[in-house]
């Protein structure tokens, strides 16, 4: 039950291949960290699982509970238990947090949630995430600070109780206290529901709170190394260079950086000549 199985996943954005054959299995209750330098496909992997229209799966498969995820619409994936806490949550003016969340909760229930139950749950969640009391009445993410938006993602997670949560750098933009609050809320929810987690993060502090049991390193759209929690710790202290050396690879972002420096150099030469 509740197993996510990804095989040979190839994903393109505007005809550029970002993921080139990813295999990943997440069993119920497991916590997996996906690490890797920026621009190598971590967010793409999560967005492709959720079904972002910009990302095209060109090859491979994703199954969740033996259901073909790629054949499902975005909302069906959500109702099947998948949740993505986004790196850049959208602002939706005119739609209040409470209307949105109530509609989202009702979308996955046979009978609508009663107003009383909803308000109680909302109050508790706002309290857990230490957010301002007026959250329910504010428009969805509109005018929220970066940190508030990230916390609001976790509010939604807590209310919707998914069976698999994906956290896309949900800790970036959070201060030390907020990281603790968010980390604890996720941990508590996991204890209650046994949800599985795929976490993308650059911060050891956050990973320490989430305690992933498995680590996958994504470079150039492929998982190049896998290990347990100790791999995440090693990356945190030593970086990725030892992996590049060991495997003799150059990550995508560094290649781009090299190209960029050539053009900068050319401009500098042009200016010097003038």
């Amino acid at each position, binding site marked *: 039950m509740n197993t996510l199985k990804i095989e040979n996943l190839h994903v393109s954005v505007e005809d550029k291949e970002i993921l080139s054959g990813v295999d990943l299995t997440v069993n119920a209750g497991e916590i997996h960290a996906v690490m890797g330098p920026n621009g190598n496909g971590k967010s793409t992997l999560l967005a492709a699982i959720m079904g972002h229209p910009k990302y095209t799966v060109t090859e491979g498969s994703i199954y969740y509970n033996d259901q073909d995820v790629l054949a499902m619409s975005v909302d069906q994936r*959500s109702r099947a238990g998948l949740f993505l806490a*986004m790196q850049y949550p959208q602002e*939706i003016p*005119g739609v209040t947090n409470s209307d949105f969340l109530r509609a989202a909760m009702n979308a996955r229930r046979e009978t609508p949630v009663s107003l009383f139950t909803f308000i109680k749950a909302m109050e508790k969640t706002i309290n857990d995430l230490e957010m301002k009391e007026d959250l329910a009445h504010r428009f969805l993410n509109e005018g929220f600070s970066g940190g508030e938006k990230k916390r609001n993602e976790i509010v939604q997670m807590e209310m919707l109780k998914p069976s698999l949560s994906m956290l896309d750098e949900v800790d970036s933009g959070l201060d030390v206290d907020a990281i603790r609050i968010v980390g604890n809320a996720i941990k508590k929810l996991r204890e209650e529901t046994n949800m599985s987690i795929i976490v993308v993060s650059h911060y050891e502090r956050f990973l320490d709170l989430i305690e992933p049991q498995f680590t996958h390193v994504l470079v150039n759209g492929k998982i190049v190394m896998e290990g347990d929690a100790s791999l995440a710790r090693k990356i945190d202290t030593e970086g990725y260079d030892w992996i590049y050396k060991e495997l003799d690879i150059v990550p995508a972002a560094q290649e781009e950086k090299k190209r960029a420096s050539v053009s900068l150099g050319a401009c500098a030469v042009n200016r010097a000549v003038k």
Partner: protein
Amino acid sequence: MVITEKVITLIPEAGYSSYDIDTEESVSLQLTGRYDSDLFLRIRKAADVTIHAALEESAKLTLLVWNEAGSEVHFDEIYEVNRNASLHVSYGEVFQGKTVRCTKVTLLGEGAFADVSSAVLTQTDKQFEITVTSDAPNTTGLMHNYSVVLAGGKYDMDAVGVITKGSHGSQSHQTSRSLCFDAEMNSRIIPKLIIDDNDVQASHAASLGRVDEEQLYYMQSRGLSEQQCTALLSTGYLMPIVDTIENEELKGILRAELEEKIAELCSI
């Protein structure tokens, strides 16, 4: 009360009253605003509707015109607002019938005030031409137009604010917003300001756009179907019009009618 006569003359009493228009014929409504009145006008069926309203000095009239006709209706409306009188007109246009509306509001006396607002949710043609003219000093003319255009819908809005020479100290402000769910984007807003005096304040804001793909994805990723997203976004778009009405009874009617119709249209 149901209006079936061709010509009717009304002096609305103070407080709330409501009238239904239900006829195959054309209807002409002669209104005199004398007190502080709140009027709910429901059009069930009609050919042409003519409204001529004159607000006497210091009178206050709030009018909600709710058009639920299933066939085409032409509206021709003239409002004259005298010294220190105050007029609120709100239009609810969320039904299948086509609408062609020409509204002319003239602020005739010093201190006169008018606020014209419209909420449109459409799968058919809705055409509006609204002109609010300040023709005396220290008057205020406001317009708020919100529309959601669904597949097959067409929306046209000419919003004109006029301040004539000598109407110093007057204000003319307008906001028009249109949200399209249709790929055809059959929506057109033309905001105009015609100002012929120096000592005035005037502004216009218009926005017209399709639903953002990223917003839709975000909402769907929480389990909402495209129809549910459309309904929520439409509610968010049209509800601000409710706040332009002061009278609680009219507010309640408008909110409930809008919610019901949004739920119905967006679940198709």
